[in-house]
């Protein structure tokens, strides 16, 4: 429906006899000559905004964009679109904390959208051998990535897309960092990680396992060989228990060290009864892994179950499988025999006092409330710390991590050719895979700005999304969004801006998980990827917050017929500003806040869209 409005001013018709009458009661003129748009003082514009999910994602994943492509059945396009901001959907689709789901605006209506499962679906759709489209050439600058965990992988990926020659150094014989040797296979199968490195290699990124910096090569060597360095060695050491008396024994080990051994196929001497100390993901991963190796496992955590930092799903699954949990308890003393065998593990009951600096209530030892826990092996999962001695005093370290500027550049000492950046768990950011991936992306962009001689702090400001720390690679590259509509990358659409009346409840498609009895002894993945039907159904629950989906509500409600379909294969609508009175009904009735009311004087992209008139 293109506007071909014909103005027919009212004429005086003489009705001298019934003969002169039109065949029905209808006017023979119209009022189009009266351009009611002149009454306006504010006007509507179509403007896509940042949905709550994208805003909550540390990587600024354009979730709504790839969901839209998924719904159209364009799975490959959805994959490449997703990869613009987060390169590893098959991985994050399995292990991400999913801040997006927590922020999803659908929760007040029924339940959040299963974004993580949808991301996994998209990631799993695409053949490992599918070549990356539009790979650029090289500008000649080189980047050494130290550490092949998610931060390093992400920096390598984006740096390659920005034309860098990239080499990833990895001390272990296998690539992937925590993804490969920290997270157990039943959560993240090793083949998935290996496939991602296969893809990175196909892009021209050089992989160097068994090449630890500080072991096979020194930091100074690579500092002088490469133009840029990205440090991403992660946290692979564990906090000590720090108990009175001797606690060194082959049977007192870091949970992370145990997981690494298992991941590398090495034998582990675990005994029969394991006590796991801690309540985070490492503790749970270690507990469930030990359980699968045939041990009886008890987790000992000093606060209550509600305060455990691990994924609640992980905790629940562990308990279903048969892992025991003893909360409000902490180890007080370990008594060892001379050969290192654990004679006694003495624990103390705890109670919760006032909150500490993390905001959680501080656990306090209860006087005289000691008790024994039967254990012949203790695994610690009370916090991981970086190993940074390889830096050779080249960088400042504060509180065990490397401080960086807004572009993740390291404050270095000494000299060397390379500009040094860092990311992942060794810088002061939350310890999640997605934060690591986001840091790799940000550093790659900062490095590219540095290479070009532009000020990356201005650039990072320009490409910021919403009100968090996320930045957009698409904006940096000037790539088009899915909707060819004006974009506002700062306004966040939270649940207050959604008109829930236009959405009906739809039950969430549940991801199947193997029964506890079956999965509890297996290292195979115990969830399966959505089928295409399930994915379509779940994707159908996305409300497309802040993004136009041509639902026609504005068109239906406009009292002045001033919303015109652009037509001819073009997306969306145009306002007929000749008649739009700026009443704001379109803005109010847009279910998803994809319209903005702006001051009449504001000139807007797309204002020149010509509706043809006769």
């Amino acid at each position, binding site marked *: 429906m293109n506007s071909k409005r014909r103005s027919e001013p009212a004429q005086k018709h003489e009705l001298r006899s019934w003969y002169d009458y039109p065949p029905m009661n*209808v006017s023979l003129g119209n009022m189009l000559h009266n351009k009611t748009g002149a009454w306006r003082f504010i006007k509507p514009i179509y403007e896509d905004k940042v949905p709550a999910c994208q805003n909550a994602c540390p990587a600024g994943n354009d979730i709504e964009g790839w969901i839209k492509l998924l719904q159209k059945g364009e799975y490959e396009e959805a994959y490449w679109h997703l990869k613009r901001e987060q390169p590893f959907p098959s991985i994050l689709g399995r292990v991400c904390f999913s801040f997006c789901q927590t922020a999803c605006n659908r929760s007040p209506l029924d339940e959040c959208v299963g974004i993580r499962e949808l991301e996994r679906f998209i990631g799993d759709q695409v053949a490992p051998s599918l070549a990356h489209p539009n790979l650029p050439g090289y500008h000649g600058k080189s980047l050494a990535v130290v550490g092949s965990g998610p931060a390093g992988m992400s920096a390598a990926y984006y740096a390659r897309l920005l034309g860098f020659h990239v080499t990833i150094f990895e001390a272990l014989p296998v690539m992937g960092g925590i993804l490969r040797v920290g997270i157990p296979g039943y959560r993240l199968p090793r083949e998935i990680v290996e496939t991602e490195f296969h893809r990175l290699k196909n892009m021209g990124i050089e992989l160097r396992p068994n090449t630890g910096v500080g072991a096979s090569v020194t930091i100074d060597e690579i500092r002088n060989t490469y133009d840029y360095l990205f440090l991403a060695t992660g946290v692979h050491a564990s906090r000590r228990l720090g108990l009175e008396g001797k606690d060194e024994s082959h049977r007192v080990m870091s949970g992370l060290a145990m997981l690494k051994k298992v991941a590398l196929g090495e034998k582990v001497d675990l005994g029969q009864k394991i006590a796991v100390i801690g309540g985070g993901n490492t503790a749970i991963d270690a507990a469930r892994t030990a359980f699968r190796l045939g041990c009886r496992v008890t987790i000992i955590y000093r606060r209550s179950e509600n305060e455990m930092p691990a994924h609640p799903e992980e905790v629940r699954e562990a308990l279903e499988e048969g892992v025991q949990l003893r909360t409000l308890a902490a180890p007080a003393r370990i008594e060892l025999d001379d050969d290192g065998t654990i004679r006694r593990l003495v624990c103390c009951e705890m109670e919760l006092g006032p909150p500490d600096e993390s905001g959680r209530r501080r656990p306090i030892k209860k006087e005289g409330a000691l008790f024994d826990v039967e254990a012949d092996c203790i695994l610690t999962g009370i916090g991981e710390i970086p190993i940074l001695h390889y830096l050779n005093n080249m960088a400042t370290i504060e509180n065990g991590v490397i401080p960086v500027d807004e572009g993740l550049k390291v404050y270095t000492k000494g000299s060397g050719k390379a500009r040094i950046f860092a990311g992942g768990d060794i810088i002061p950011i939350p310890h999640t895979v997605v934060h690591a991936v986001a840091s790799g992306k940000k550093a790659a962009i900062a490095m590219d700005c540095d290479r070009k001689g532009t000020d990356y702090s201005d650039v990072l400001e320009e490409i910021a999304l919403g009100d968090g720390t996320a930045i957009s690679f698409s904006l940096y590259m000037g790539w088009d969004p899915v909707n060819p509509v004006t974009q506002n990358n700062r306004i966040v659409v939270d649940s207050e801006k959604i008109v829930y009346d236009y959405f009906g409840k739809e039950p969430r498609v549940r991801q199947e998980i193997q029964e506890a009895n079956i999965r509890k002894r297996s290292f195979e993945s115990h969830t399966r990827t959505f089928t295409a039907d399930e994915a379509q159904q779940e994707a159908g629950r996305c409300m497309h917050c802040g993004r136009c989906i041509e639902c026609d509500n504005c068109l239906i409600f406009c009292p002045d017929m001033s919303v015109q379909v652009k037509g001819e294969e073009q997306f969306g609508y145009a306002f007929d500003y000749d008649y739009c009175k700026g009443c704001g009904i379109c803005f109010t009735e847009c279910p998803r806040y994809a319209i903005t009311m702006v001051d009449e004087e504001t000139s807007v992209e797309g204002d020149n869209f010509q509706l043809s008139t006769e």
Partner: protein
Amino acid sequence: MRQVIKGNHAVSHGVRLSRVKVISAYPITPQTTIVEQLSEMCASGELEAKFIKVESEHSAMAAVVGSASAGVRSFTATSSHGLLLMHEVLHWTAGARLPIVLANVNRAVGPGWNIWADQTDSLSQRDTGWIQFYCESNQEVLDSVIMGYRLAEKVMLPVMLSYDAFFLSHTSEIVDVPDIEQVDEFLPPYEPEFRLDVNKPRMFGGMVGPDCYYEERYVMFRDALKVLDIYPQVCEQFHAVFGREYDVVEEYRTEEAEIILVTAGTITSVSRIAVDRARGEGKKVGLMKLRLFRPLPIERWQKVLGNAAKVVVIDRDLCAGLGGVFASEIRSALYPLTNRPVLFSFIAGLGGRDVTPEDVEGMINYAAANEEPETMPLFWGLKGDQGGNHAETL
């Protein structure tokens, strides 16, 4: 293709074959299965129409007024109280000159709450300006939908076709359901001169003062009378394609009839039997089946009935304070004749009470035996004394 279908489904097929684009209706016994089958046809894609769900018949009629104004062939169906609820909008539809077809299942008006055959509902709407047809068989019902659209779109007036509750709506009969290609030959797409068009905005149904309204209504009146010329043309075209005829009236054995019955609806079928029996006994009795009721085919009625000595009108309806509506209209049609027949008015079958051939024979015999009718109609088969002549004693 010949099928055994109920009257309501005959309507559904008629609507499907007419390629109706918008349907809006509210359920009421005994109309519901019309719309039920239409919604199934829409769901299966057999009928490409938009079904608008509404909360009342007033809204249903208003919805199709909207869609017809936008230039789209539209349909609704109702019965009894549903039709009455639409009353205001019925006036509007005709005044707005919208060619909507409405199928009305003739059902009694309450209170008492009665769902059975009675023609008071549609007859009480005779002033609204709608063209009105009364159908005797399921075949006629189906054909009337198709013809209805053709006629309505030619004269730009809405058409109401009525048929008896349960006797037709829920009774199966053999119906020849035409192929849609045949119907396409007969019924072209609806392309009105004036319609709601956002690109050519106009004012519809605007305010009109005493200086203009009169002539507007005159135009409507004239156009309604045109039906009397146009309808026979439509009939001819229909006959050419489908081989069936539906005249404004049907004369059954009226040659040299001294007594002519006038009936509408299924009482007609029953009366045919009574007429045959009477003729068998040598009585000169005939029947005029009344099909078109509005506009009043005055000349035709005069022609058919004028030479009879007695006219017996059976009304399955009642207008309080007046009597039978058909009787009243026929009287007024015959009034201009210098020699006019004597008119016996019977009320029968209200609220679905059965009218048998024996009842009709009784009415014929009453007319034969009496020279002057009563002032007030005779309520055939009434339980208890009616006062005056007791018709039941015959």
